[in-house]
């Protein structure tokens, strides 16, 4: 397997939330590695702590135990180094498309004249030309997620965290955006961690899939996906696709045969 130093590694990460009627242990000694230009999907039952893992990686929450290493060094979360995309588009309603896109660079202190030019290029490439001065409420769901994606890419983060980014979209738009994502990740050589409930999506996009157990979340299995197609649609028609799909369903205890 990969012998390089992982881009990002989680070691024995444990997190417990205080709650009424006893603490909730959400993550228990969670460990996994993500390599440079990796595409890792995390799947697992609802409530097993996937979003919590993301918040810990992003540096929004601190683990009770365990450590995060980036390029081999222990870090306190990746604040300022991660791109972040959720199911909600998280666009600022008071900012135009252009102003939303440059947000990350603005926070980082890049002068507007500079970021504006890059932003316009991206907006053009991703088919949003003419909407740069529109407010988010005037956009469709798919367009909003495209804006969120551009905002994430333009920020040029070390690691991109995607928490069910396409799950609120219709199937067509989702296929299209999956394609856009995979292409962008290839072009810009990004490292991606994707949380999804869609096993199909996980297989079609990732190089590896990490399966979490139900709460408290631990790594139950890691599956290497050996599909080498260029687009998520081609991946889905690979003969090996359904093998991976069924293996992951079995990991999640989903019955794939009626009456079995």
């Amino acid at each position: 397997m990969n012998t390089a130093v992982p881009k990002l590694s989680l070691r024995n990460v444990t997190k417990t939330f205080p709650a009424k009627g006893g603490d909730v242990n959400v993550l228990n000694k969670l460990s996994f590695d993500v390599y440079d230009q990796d595409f890792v999907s995390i799947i697992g039952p609802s409530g097993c702590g996937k979003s919590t893992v993301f918040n810990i990686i992003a540096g929004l929450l601190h683990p009770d135990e365990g450590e995060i290493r980036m390029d081999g060094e222990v870090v306190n979360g990746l604040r300022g180094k991660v791109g972040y995309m959720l199911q909600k588009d998280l666009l600022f309603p008071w900012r135009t498309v252009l102003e939303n896109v440059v947000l990350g660079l603005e926070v980082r202190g890049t002068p507007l004249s500079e970021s504006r030019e890059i932003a316009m290029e991206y907006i053009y490439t991703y088919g949003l030309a003419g909407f740069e001065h529109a407010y988010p409420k005037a956009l469709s769901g798919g367009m909003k997620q495209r804006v969120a994606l551009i905002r994430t890419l333009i920020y040029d983060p070390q690691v991109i965290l995607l928490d069910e980014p396409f799950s609120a979209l219709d199937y067509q738009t989702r296929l299209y955006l999956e394609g856009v994502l995979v292409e962008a990740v290839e072009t810009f050589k990004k490292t991606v961690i994707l949380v999804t409930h869609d096993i199909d999506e996980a297989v079609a996009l990732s190089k590896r899939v990490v399966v979490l157990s139900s709460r408290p979340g631990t790594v139950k299995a890691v599956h290497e996906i050996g599909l080498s197609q260029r687009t998520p649609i081609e991946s889905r028609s690979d003969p090996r696709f359904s093998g991976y799909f069924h293996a992951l369903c079995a990991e999640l205890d989903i019955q794939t045969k009626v009456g079995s």
Partner: protein
Amino acid sequence: MDEVLARQSNDAEKIKRPAKFLTPQLKATASTLSIQLGMVFAFLLIWQFVVERGWISAFLAGSPAGIFSKLLEAVNNGSLWDNAKATVIEAIAGFLIGSLLGSLLGLSLWYSSFFARVVEPFIVAINSVPKIAFAPIVILWFGTGMVSKIMLATSMTFIIALIAAYEAAKNADRDLQSLMLALGSTKHQLFFKVVVPYSLPAIIATFRINIGFGLVGAVVGEFISSSHGLGHMIFTASSFYDLDTVWVGLFTLMLVGFILYYVVDRVERRLLPWKQADSGQRFRV
């Protein structure tokens, strides 16, 4: 590059609706306006009729004809203008000082939740006193001139603005804040890029209410002790049972409040263009 930019601005142009002279909206406004004017006119006619018939005493109710002659008189000798000017200046000054200071302080409470927790009960306590009850003290402290009315109008508006701004800032979208923090934002950036813009609609909504309270502060101050202003005009006229002049003062106040409200409305449209994006869109029911 220039060509590209030109093309983009063209695209943007296409999104806007072409301006026509008599748009449907304009027609709708004209028809509501004529109905409203008709209602006012009918009301005045009935009032005059009822008073002339003697069904209602003109002495206690005034009459439109009498109001009109008093209005002409007050306009001609300039007293109406003087009084209105005094009241408007007091109300606006108090409104601006109270609302701006209150909003700024309310927003800045976001910075320290500890400090906010410490002062919260005091804010609630002050808010629960009817501010108008301070009027006599304020007049004692600041005299019978305009300053005391400005102070009253300030005290009427300050706490309301403070509470509204603080509440709005406290409830600023958590997810947007998480995003900003993940992007590496500082507390300052979080404040200016999320908390302030998020709270602005609520703050401006309070401005609408506060413009009315500014007028209340000014007028009540004038009732208590003054030599100018619409409140003074109404108060002295009513002590002489000059109901027509009282009505002139009241209607002028109404007009002033109306205009100021409209100004705040314009300011809101200016400051919150993103709220306006779908204003033309209504559901058919």
